[in-house]
């Protein structure tokens, strides 16, 4: 929003604002208040206008800071000339290229920040200088993001506030303000489909649908204040911060060296980046979702290994499903199979582990997990089959008992008829 505001402010807002300021300064209606800035600016239109309601919720205002802490001047003076006098330190509108420095004047001062939030980091400005945004700003490009573009201004909330523009569920939309705007990004020659792709990804689902705030958004992989692309050869380092075991397996695989040699971006080769979908076993197949045959030739040694690994996964998956089916049938027949039902989770865990081990592309390691899962699924299947046999045995017993009861009832009926005849 600030960037858009920046685009238009010199065109229309300036003359209107000057006129309104003159009218207000001539009026005697402005009485003595503690913040004369707000008395006038709350009545001004954009971009000089500041909503009093919005400002009230700003984290800085909540902590006792006011307009003068950033803009200088004298908020106690009723006279606009005095309030906005250079003598009183008034800075007026902060130049975009000055914004990081201004924010950093407090946020980079540990002694100052300690009084408000001792746990808050104070290296944001240093990080910003290392970011693509910071470097470009230093080079004179004022179209790049500065603090206020992401955090907003005059209504800035703490990142933990769900209404904050940098709350985990809102970060992607905040970045997309610029990065999804094809015309705005045109000079930089980078894609603008990241937001669309991310919205279809499993990470987005986990973050917004499941509500898991630890799920990745833009800043998780790119950094926030030090935002930059991770770099082709470092992608697996980024992914491994969450996908630890997959990364360990990948480290053992022959793919690591091969991808490095070919300058291929690790995990991204098979999983893509912003649009990562939920991986299925079909990735190992030869259908539309298959990834192996993008590099390998059908029928070669690697393709054969792929087919074997896929077959192992399918085998365990089928075994688990079969056991589940029999156990569900036994359970719906009222048989007590809760232990086996619980044990099925261990078989499912083994399958998940095997899917993780796939990243090693080593059949011997995968087989260990598959065999462990198959043993559990097989044991549970036997429990289910035994329960079903027990159910049938009970039903036969019931049938025989009912025949015996029927015979006794007939006998009693005949006897009653005999003694009453």
């Amino acid at each position, binding site marked *: 929003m600030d960037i858009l505001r920046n685009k238009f402010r010199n065109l229309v807002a300036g003359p209107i604002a000057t006129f309104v300021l003159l009218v207000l300064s001539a009026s005697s209606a402005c009485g003595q208040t503690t913040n004369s800035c707000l008395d006038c600016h709350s009545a001004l239109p954009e971009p000089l206008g500041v909503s009093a309601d919005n400002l009230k919720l700003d984290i800085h205002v909540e902590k006792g800071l006011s307009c003068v802490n950033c803009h200088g001047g004298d908020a106690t003076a009723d006279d606009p000339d005095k309030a906005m006098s250079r003598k009183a330190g008034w800075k007026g509108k902060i130049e975009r290229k000055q914004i990081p420095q201004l924010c950093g004047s407090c946020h980079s001062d540990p002694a100052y920040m300690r009084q408000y939030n001792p746990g808050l980091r104070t290296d944001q400005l240093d990080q910003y200088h290392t970011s693509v945004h910071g470097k470009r700003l230093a080079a004179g490009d004022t179209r790049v993001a500065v603090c206020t573009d992401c955090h907003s201004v005059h209504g800035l909330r703490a990142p933990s506030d769900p209404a904050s523009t940098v709350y985990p569920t809102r970060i992607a939309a905040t970045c997309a303000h610029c990065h999804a705007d094809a015309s705005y990004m045109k000079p930089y020659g980078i894609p603008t489909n990241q937001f669309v792709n991310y919205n279809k990804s499993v990470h987005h689902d986990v973050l917004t649908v499941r509500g898991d705030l630890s799920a990745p958004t833009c800043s998780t992989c790119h950094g926030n204040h030090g935002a930059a692309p991770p770099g082709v050869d470092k992608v697996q380092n980024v992914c491994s911060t969450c996908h630890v075991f997959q990364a360990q397996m990948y480290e053992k695989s022959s793919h690591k060296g091969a991808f490095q040699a070919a300058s291929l971006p690790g995990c991204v080769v098979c999983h893509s980046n912003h649009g990562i979908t939920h991986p299925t076993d079909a990735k190992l197949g030869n259908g539309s979702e298959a990834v192996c045959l993008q590099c390998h030739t059908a029928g070669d040694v690697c393709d054969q290994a792929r087919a074997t690994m896929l077959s192992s996964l399918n085998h365990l998956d089928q075994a688990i499903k079969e056991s589940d089916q029999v156990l569900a049938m036994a359970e719906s*027949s*009222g*048989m*007590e199979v*809760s*232990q086996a039902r619980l044990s099925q989770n261990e078989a499912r865990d083994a399958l998940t582990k095997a899917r993780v081990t796939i990243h090693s592309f080593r059949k011997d390691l995968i087989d260990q997990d598959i065999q462990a899962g198959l043993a559990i699924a097989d044991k549970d299947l036997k429990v289910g089959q035994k329960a079903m046999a027990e159910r049938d045995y*009970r*039903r036969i*017993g*019931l049938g025989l*008992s*009912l025949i015996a*009861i*029927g015979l*006794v*009832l007939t006998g*009693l*009926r005949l*006897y*009653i008829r005999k*003694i*009453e005849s």
Partner: protein
Amino acid sequence: MSLLRNLGAWFNERLDWNSLMAPLRKKTVPRHRLSYWYFLGGITLFLFMIQVVTGILLLLYYRPGANEAFESVQYIMTQVQFGWLLRSIHSWSANLMIFTAMAHMFSVLLLKAYRKPRELTWISGVILLFLVLGFGFSGYLLPWNTLAYFATKVGTEITGQVPIIGKPLMVFLRGGEDVTGATLSRFFGFHVAVLPGLATVLVLVHLLLVQRFGISVPPKVEQEWIVNPNARREMKFFPNFALRELMAWYVALGVLGALAALFPWNLGVKADPFAPAPAGIKPEWYFLFMFQTLKLIPSKIGPIDGEVLGVLAFGLAGLIWLLLPLLESRQPSRPKQWISAFALVALVYMTGMSIYGHLAK
């Protein structure tokens, strides 16, 4: 056969068995188109006996305690030879017994068998029904599964709504402020000692009163017999009625066996006091009409709390129900149909509210 006859003669010589059995031999049962309703009391007694036997057998393996109860029932159902059958029969029989006890009570009301001189038989029967409901409530918690835990929590909370004595009563039932292992031990004590003791005494009193006053004939049938004395028919209790009752018991046994084998009673998931209550939790069917009524009552009726008013209303209704025959006998000249109408309204209300409660989310 001669050995048995000699043994019988030996006992008879000492106990005068023949004299003891003489009143039963003379006892007769009226025979008419509504005689089938006479079997319900006997079937309830049969199911009570099944409960006693299966309950004692379950006791051999059941261990009360929050850490052991669920596992012991699981052990009974999976490891003990025919344990599944015992537990399933005990659970199904409990439900069938409550059903037949209620059916017996409504048949007594609608056939007007509660009239003078049988008021005490009615009162002992209603108290027995309350005891049976107590068996149901206390026994439901014993497997210590999630549904039972939260149903007990809700049930005892409702008890806590009774003015003045509610809170102490709730703490007494729970053995503390919350439903814990102490509640389980307490309910176990009620279920296997206190309630069976009281119920056995009351069953004997009830049977004694039935024996003392004989079996009631519905007023309509009585009128028909006065008009046409030749229509009066009776059968001997021994062996004619007893054999028919035996047939009814066999049918009940068949139904019970079929239910236990085809629909074994589910054990559910072990109770976790720290887990949130499952959505849409409901009590057993026999408490559902009361639960649903309390749910529908507004939270405030005037200055009084709606739930408190509901609990008090049910308490009053229970007391009126207990004393119904006395209320009628004080006004012998007035038309007596109001009790039948009251019984019908109560039956329709309980059935309707139970179905509503079952379907409601």
